[in-house]
């Protein structure tokens, strides 16, 4: 009979701090610069509770407080700038704090809707267009998969000379460098 993995009891005491009690925009935080305030939050709020006991790293508060501190810091601890990062307001949960999650749920299409990201397989045909010569990220030409390439071709009535068609030998971009 197979054993179901079960987490052992935490090595740390249970943390009862409420995430609502923590306000990274509190004007009374010590320090004048962003770095001083962030260091204070790291060392005195994320790592320790208000009784100066070490906080459990496996509790959700640890991660939530860390992320809230970091995201409050990049907008200068100014609550008025919060909409620059979170158009729908600050989340109480851990996952809702990540920008990749928060900015996908604002009514705009998800990243998957915006970027195709199809990885070419060996022998697959891909397209290149003279209108879009170089990819800023890769120093080589922008490539489009068959579906998007054909769509662009028909949509904008490109002449055949503006497109090139190639077979791809497969593989993921740049991973061989590491």
């Amino acid at each position, binding site marked *: 009979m197979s054993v179901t993995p079960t*987490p052992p009891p935490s090595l740390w005491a249970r943390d009862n701090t409420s995430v609502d009690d923590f306000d990274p925009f509190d004007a009374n935080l010590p320090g004048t610069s*962003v*770095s001083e305030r962030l260091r204070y939050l790291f060392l005195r709020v*994320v790592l320790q509770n208000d009784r100066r006991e070490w906080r459990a790293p496996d509790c959700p508060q640890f991660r939530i407080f860390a992320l809230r501190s*970091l995201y409050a810091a990049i907008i200068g601890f100014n609550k008025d700038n919060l909409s620059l990062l979170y158009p729908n307001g600050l989340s109480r949960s851990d996952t809702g704090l990540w920008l990749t999650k928060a900015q996908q749920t604002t009514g705009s299409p998800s990243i998957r809707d915006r970027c195709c990201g199809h990885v070419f397989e060996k022998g697959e045909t*891909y397209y290149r267009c003279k209108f879009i010569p170089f990819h800023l990220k890769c120093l080589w030409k922008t490539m489009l998969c068959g579906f998007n390439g054909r769509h662009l071709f028909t949509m904008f009535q490109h002449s055949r000379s503006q497109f090139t068609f*190639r077979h791809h*030998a497969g593989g993921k971009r740049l991973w061989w460098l590491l």
Partner: protein
Amino acid sequence: MLVGNGSGGCCDCGDPEAFHVGAPRCGIHVVSTPDQDHPPVPDEVRESIKETMATALDFFIDVLSTTTLERDEVNVDDCNQAAKWGQLNYVPQKDEMDVGDWVVTLYNDEVHSYNDVTLQLSRLDAERYGEAEALYVARVIDVIGREPIAKSPDQVKMLKAADQIMRIGLFCSVRSERDYLRECLAGIILEWLVDCISIGVSVGGDEMILRESMCQVLAGTWNMGISDPDPRVELEPQFVRFGDELPSDSFKTDWSAPSPESDKYEEAWNESEYIRLDWLLFFDARLWKSTRKCVKSIILGCLLGGKVEVAGTAVDPWGPRNWKRITGTTNSWYRG
């Protein structure tokens, strides 16, 4: 019709960086990425982004500098020395004296099996690590790369526990609770940086500002918050510890490779010119699985693929400048 050379790739459709402003879009992946004019991000926010990233990365380097690297370092003297070394100088020293308990952390490797780990855990503490619990911890170690397995104020007891685990070749670190928790926070910082530089993440509609700031911060120098940098990453004779063999002169001079644009040789390595990226790469051996993935994501997503002009001359199109030093190789493709 041509056959590609296999250098890899994926469809760039919809990636705002892959298209010129005003270039035609396919209409499928462009719903939210027209060339909109967003109000410029306020200057104070730009500065805050850089300051936050710099502070967070400096904290990361401070904390990881004092990490245990070898089995020989798991002893009373080195553990106490690391706890002292890890005191941050921007905190009142009396606050840094409280290091809490001692934590034994077990790391994964490519050699040992689940059975090896579960057996050692049950030997360590049969009451805490039953079959199901030991299996859970072994899985976490396999996925994340490490897991705390014991914690106690008794340092000697923890060192004995670590020694028992390491008898079969596994590796454990024994760090103070203070430093272990700081390492955990450092791991979250790396995840946060990866989140910031992900495609599609913007600040007020500006999708490049976080990545540009990240490049600039990585190309800046480490604002050290501990007493000394890690001597173990140096190659100078006075820093070599534990009777290691000194690197040969030929090893030192291997780094004078020609730059791709000319016949000029790069300048000799200068310690004072280490940038944050250098430290991040030096620390590869002391990271764990999940953080190592984050570092790769940062390098790929931000530096190798970032806008070269943003980071200045410290990062060139051929990758981080210390690539040769890290790998110990010279690249034939590098010598156009």
